[in-house]
C-alpha cells in the first residue's frame, strides 16, 4: 500500500515526461528481476513474476487514469475569491504543485520521497485553473476603479450585491459598538467570549427565523428551534450532504447550477453529483421528466440517488420555481423516497413580478413529507454580508437537525457577529426598509443591464431573482462548443476587460451562455460595461 501511494506521486512526474512512461518503468523493473530469477527454476518464475508485475502495473495504471478523469471532471471550488495574491512570493501556487512532487524525488533529505498527503489534495489541482478562478485572479491583479484604474477589469463574475450596503453601513455606524459589547449595560465580554452552543445562540436563531419570515413576505413562519446556524451557506450544504448521503451515493442537480456545488457537495464527502440538464427551449426550467430519466439511468449504473438539490431563485439563471413545480418535485421525491435540499439563499433578492414561493410554504401544508425537505439559507446575498459568515439549515427532520447540530462545531458563527446581527435583524423597521429598497435597486439595475445587452443583440432569460443575467451569446462564438465559448470568455476578459462566468463553469449543456452579475455595478458603470462588451461583440460578428 505504501509503495502504491509513493508511486502515485511519482507517476505524475513520469506522466509528464512521456505518455508511454508506464511501460518504460515496468521494463526497468522486470528485466533485472528476470536475470535474478533465471538462476534457479528460472523459466517458471521468470515468466510468472513478470506477468504478475505486468498485471499489477496495468491495474495500477488503470486506477491512476481514473484519478485523472476525476480531476478533469471536478470543477472549480466556486464562490470564494482568488488564489494568487500577495502571498505569491513565498508559496508555490498551483502550477508549482507538480514541481514540488518531482522535486521530492531525488532529494537527499527524504530518501523515500516527500511525505504524502491524502487523495483529497489532488481533487483541487485542476479546479484552480478553471475560468472561474482565473477570472477572479485577474480582477484582483487589475481591478477597475473609476478614477485610479479606468482601464482595469470590471468584475461581473462574483455574486456580490453592493447596491444596498450603504443601508447596512448606516445602521452599523449608529449601533455597532453599543450592541456588541454593552447591550445597553456595562461593557462585558463574558457574554460573547465563552463557549456558546455551536449551532448558534437561541436569540440569534429567533432573529434569523424572523428575518426569513420577512423575506418571504410573512408567507411562512419559521420555527427557531428548527434552525441550525453555520458559518456560511457553504458548510450548510456540505453538512447536509454528509447527513443525507453516504460515500458513493449521489444527488441530482439540475444544471446550469452554482459552480461551488462541486466543492460543497462532493469534495470531502465522497458523494457524487448527477447533473440534470435544463434546456433553453424550456427557458432552463426544471423538468420532472428529466429528473426521472436521470434517476433511472443512475439506478442502472448502480448509483444510489439520495436527494435532489435545487436552487430557488436559481443561480445562474434566476428562475423561480412555481408552486406547481414544487408540488411535482415533492411527488417525485416521495415516489423515489429521496430528500429535497432547497437552496433559497437569494429569496430576499427577488426583483421581478413573479411570486416567490418557498418550499417551506409547501411544507406548512403537507405534513407527511416534512421529513424529506431541507432548506438552506444565509445572509451573504440578501443582506450583503458574505464576510460575516452566516448560513442556515432549516428542517423538520429531527434526526437531520440532531446530526447537523453536532456537525456545526466545525463551522460555528463567531459570537460578536451573532450579537451584532441579533440587534440588526431584530430591528424590524430596518429590515423592512432594507428588503424593499434593495429589491427596487436590484430591479432597476437588472432592467438597465438587460436593456444594455439587448441593444447589442444579446438576449437574456427573463430572471425574477438574484444578481445575474443569464445571457445567450452563442451567436458570437466561432465554434458551437465549449472551446468556442471559452475563446469568447477569454476575449471578454482580456480585450473587453470584463470578467464574466462562462456557462461551462455552471455545467450548462448548451455552449455560449454566460452569467453576468450586475449587482456589483452602479448605474454609471453599466454604459461602460456595455460599451466594452460591444467592442468584442462587434469583432465577433465580423468573423
Amino acid at each position, binding site marked *: 500500500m505504501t509503495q502504491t*501511494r509513493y508511486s502515485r506521486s511519482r507517476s505524475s512526474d513520469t506522466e509528464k515526461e512521456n505518455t508511454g512512461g508506464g511501460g518504460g518503468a515496468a521494463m526497468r523493473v522486470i528485466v533485472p528481476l528476470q536475470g535474478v530469477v533465471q538462476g534457479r527454476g528460472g523459466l517458471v518464475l521468470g515468466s510468472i513474476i513478470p506477468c504478475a508485475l505486468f498485471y499489477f502495473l496495468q491495474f495500477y495504471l488503470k486506477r491512476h487514469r481514473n484519478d485523472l478523469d476525476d480531476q478533469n471532471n471536478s470543477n472549480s*471550488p466556486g*464562490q*470564494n475569491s482568488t488564489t494568487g495574491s*500577495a*502571498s505569491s512570493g*513565498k*508559496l*508555490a501556487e498551483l502550477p508549482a*504543485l507538480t514541481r*514540488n512532487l518531482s522535486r521530492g524525488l531525488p532529494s537527499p*533529505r*527524504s530518501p523515500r*520521497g516527500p*511525505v504524502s*498527503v*491524502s487523495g483529497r489534495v489532488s481533487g*483541487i489541482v485542476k479546479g484552480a485553473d478553471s475560468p472561474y478562478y482565473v477570472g477572479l485572479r485577474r480582477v484582483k491583479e487589475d481591478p477597475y476603479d473609476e478614477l485610479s484604474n479606468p482601464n482595469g477589469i470590471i468584475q461581473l463574475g462574483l455574486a456580490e450585491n*453592493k447596491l444596498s450596503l450603504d443601508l447596512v*453601513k448606516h445602521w*452599523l*455606524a449608529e449601533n455597532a*459598538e453599543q450592541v*456588541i*459589547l454593552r447591550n445597553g449595560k456595562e*461593557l462585558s*465580554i463574558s457574554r460573547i*467570549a465563552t463557549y*456558546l452552543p455551536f449551532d448558534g445562540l437561541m436569540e440569534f436563531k429567533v432573529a434569523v427565523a424572523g428575518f426569513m419570515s420577512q423575506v418571504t413576505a410573512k408567507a411562512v413562519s419559521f420555527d427557531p428551534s428548527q434552525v441550525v446556524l453555520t*458559518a*456560511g451557506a*457553504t*458548510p450548510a450544504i*456540505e453538512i447536509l450532504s*454528509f*447527513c*443525507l*448521503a453516504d460515500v458513493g451515493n449521489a444527488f441530482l442537480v439540475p444544471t446550469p447550477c452554482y459552480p461551488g456545488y462541486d466543492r460543497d457537495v462532493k*469534495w*470531502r464527502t465522497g458523494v457524487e453529483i448527477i447533473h440534470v440538464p435544463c434546456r433553453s427551449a424550456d427557458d432552463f426550467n426544471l423538468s420532472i421528466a428529466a429528473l426521472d430519466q436521470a434517476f433511472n439511468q443512475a439506478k442502472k449504473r448502480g448509483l444510489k440517488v*439520495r436527494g435532489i438539490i435545487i436552487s430557488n431563485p436559481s443561480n445562474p439563471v434566476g428562475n423561480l420555481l412555481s408552486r406547481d413545480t414544487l408540488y411535482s418535485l415533492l411527488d417525485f421525491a416521495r415516489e423515489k*423516497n429521496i*430528500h429535497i435540499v432547497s437552496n433559497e439563499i437569494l429569496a430576499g433578492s427577488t426583483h421581478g413580478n413573479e411570486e416567490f414561493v418557498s418550499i417551506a410554504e409547501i411544507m406548512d401544508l403537507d405534513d*407527511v413529507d416534512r*421529513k424529506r425537505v431541507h432548506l438552506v439559507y444565509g445572509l451573504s446575498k440578501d443582506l450583503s454580508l458574505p*464576510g*460575516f*459568515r452566516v448560513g442556515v439549515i432549516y428542517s423538520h*427532520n429531527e*434526526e*437531520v437537525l440532531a*446530526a447537523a447540530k*453536532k456537525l456545526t*462545531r*466545525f*463551522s460555528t*458563527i*463567531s459570537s*460578536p457577529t451573532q450579537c*451584532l446581527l441579533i440587534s440588526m435583524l431584530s430591528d424590524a423597521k430596518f429590515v423592512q426598509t432594507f428588503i424593499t429598497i434593495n429589491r427596487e435597486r436590484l430591479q432597476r439595475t437588472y432592467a438597465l443591464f438587460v436593456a444594455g445587452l439587448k441593444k447589442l443583440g444579446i438576449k437574456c432569460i427573463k430572471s425574477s431573482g438574484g444578481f445575474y443575467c443569464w445571457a445567450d451569446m452563442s451567436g458570437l462564438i466561432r465554434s458551437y462548443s465549449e472551446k468556442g465559448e471559452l475563446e469568447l470568455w477569454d476575449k471578454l476578459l482580456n480585450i473587453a476587460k470584463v470578467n464574466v462566468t462562462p456557462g461551462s463553469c455552471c455545467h450548462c449543456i448548451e455552449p455560449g451562455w454566460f452569467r453576468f452579475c450586475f449587482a456589483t455595478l452602479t448605474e454609471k458603470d453599466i454604459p461602460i460595461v456595455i460599451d466594452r462588451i460591444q467592442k468584442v461583440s462587434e469583432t465577433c460578428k465580423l468573423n
Partner: protein
Amino acid sequence: MAIEIEQPRVGLSKVAVSKTHGEDSPYFAGWKAYDENPYHETSNQSGVIQMGLAENQVSFDLLEKYLEEHSEASSWGKGAPGFRENALFQDYHGLKSFRQAMANFMEQIRGGRAKFDPDRIVLTAGATAANELLTFILADPGDALLIPTPYYPGFDRDLRWRTGVNIVPILCDSSNNFQITPEAMEAAYQSAESMNLKVRGILITNPSNPLGATIQRSVLELILDFAVNKNIHLVSDEIYSGSTFSSSEFISIAEILETRGYKDAERVHIVYSLSKDLGLPGFRVGTIYSYNDQVVTTARRMSSFTLISSQTQHLLACMLSNKEFSENYIKTNRERLSKRYDMIIKGLKKAGIECLKGNAGLFCWMNLSPLLEKPTRESELALWKVILNEVKLNISPGSSCHCSEPGWFRVCFANMSEQTLEIALERIHKFMEQRKRN
C-alpha cells in the same frame, strides 16, 4: 378516524447516525449534570461546580479594558469606514492584517524564539475545525493517526467522525510522568500495522491536555526523528502555548525546526487558537500553520467550510497588533494562571491528593488511584459518579481521555472565580475527610 399510512422512512447517512461523535461518553455526560443543576455563587450554592470545562476566564478584565479604550476595533470607527470592504470580504486567505497579528502573537508567546510567516497561516473557525481539516488533508479514510494518551476526549470526534480516520494510541503512563517514549511510539506504529492501518501522522498536544505539562525538548526531538524515520506527518497542537506559567518552559516544535535549519519541516504542522490563551472560545478563531506549501494551499481552500467572520478578524487584528496590549496580556495571564495552579495544588495537597507536576494549561492532572476499590476503569467511573452526584463537582475521568492507568482525573481551575475554587476545594477536603473516617 384517519387511516395511518406507513410512509417509508427517508434514510440518513451512516455519518449522521454514527456514534463516532462520541457525545455519549462520561466526559459529556458530566456536562449534562452541570447544565441541569449549575452552581451559582448566590442563587444556587449547592449546585454542581463545573470543573470539566477548560475555559480561561481569569483575564477577561484585560480584554474589556482594551475594548473600552479602542472602540474602532468593534465598530470600524466613526462613520464605519472600511465596513464595506469588511462586510464583503470572504477571501479564504483571511485578512492580511489579522494573519500578521496572529503571527506576531505566536512569536511573542514563544519569546521570539521562533519566527512565523503570515502567509503560512490558514484561518479556521476554531482549533476543532483546524484539527479536522488537517486530518482530511493528511490522511485518507481508513488510515491512522498516532496520538499519545491520555488525550483530549474531543479528538475522537474531531479527527475521526467525518474523516473516517482511525486513532491508534501511544500509551504513556505515570512511571515516567506520562512522557512519550520512542518505544511507545514504535509499539503504536506496529500495532497500527498489525491492524493493516496505514499510519499517516503523529499528533501531539504541547502543552498537553489533560496533563497540564509541556513536552521536554529532548522528547520533541525524538518525536520529530520518529516522524522523519517513518516518513509521516507531525501535527503539534499548541493551543495552550500562551498558558504556560513561565515563558521559558514552553518549547515549540517551531524552535526545534529552527535549530535544525528547517530540514524535514514539510511534514510539520502547528495548530493554534485563541480559545484558551485569550479566553475567547466564542469567537471561533483557529489557525493551521504549515511548513508544507501543498498543505497550506489545500487547507486554505478547504477553510471555505470554516471561515472566521471578517468582523471578528478585524476586531482581533486591531487588538493583537497593539503590542502594549498583547505583551501585557501574555505576561499577566501567565501570572494569574500560575497563581490559580498553586492555589489548587495546595488545596488538593491539604486534602491528601497528589497531582502530576504541571507547568501549563487550565487544569491539573489529579491522582485518585489510592481511592479506587480496584485498579479498573469501572472503579474509576464509580468514583467519578460519586464525585459528580455527592460532592457535586464535574471533573473529567481519565478513561474518557483514554488514560491506560485508572484513577487519574482532569480538574479545570480557570473557568471560575477564586471564591468558587475555594468552595470546590472545601468540598473535596470534606469528601476526603469522610472517606478517611469510613
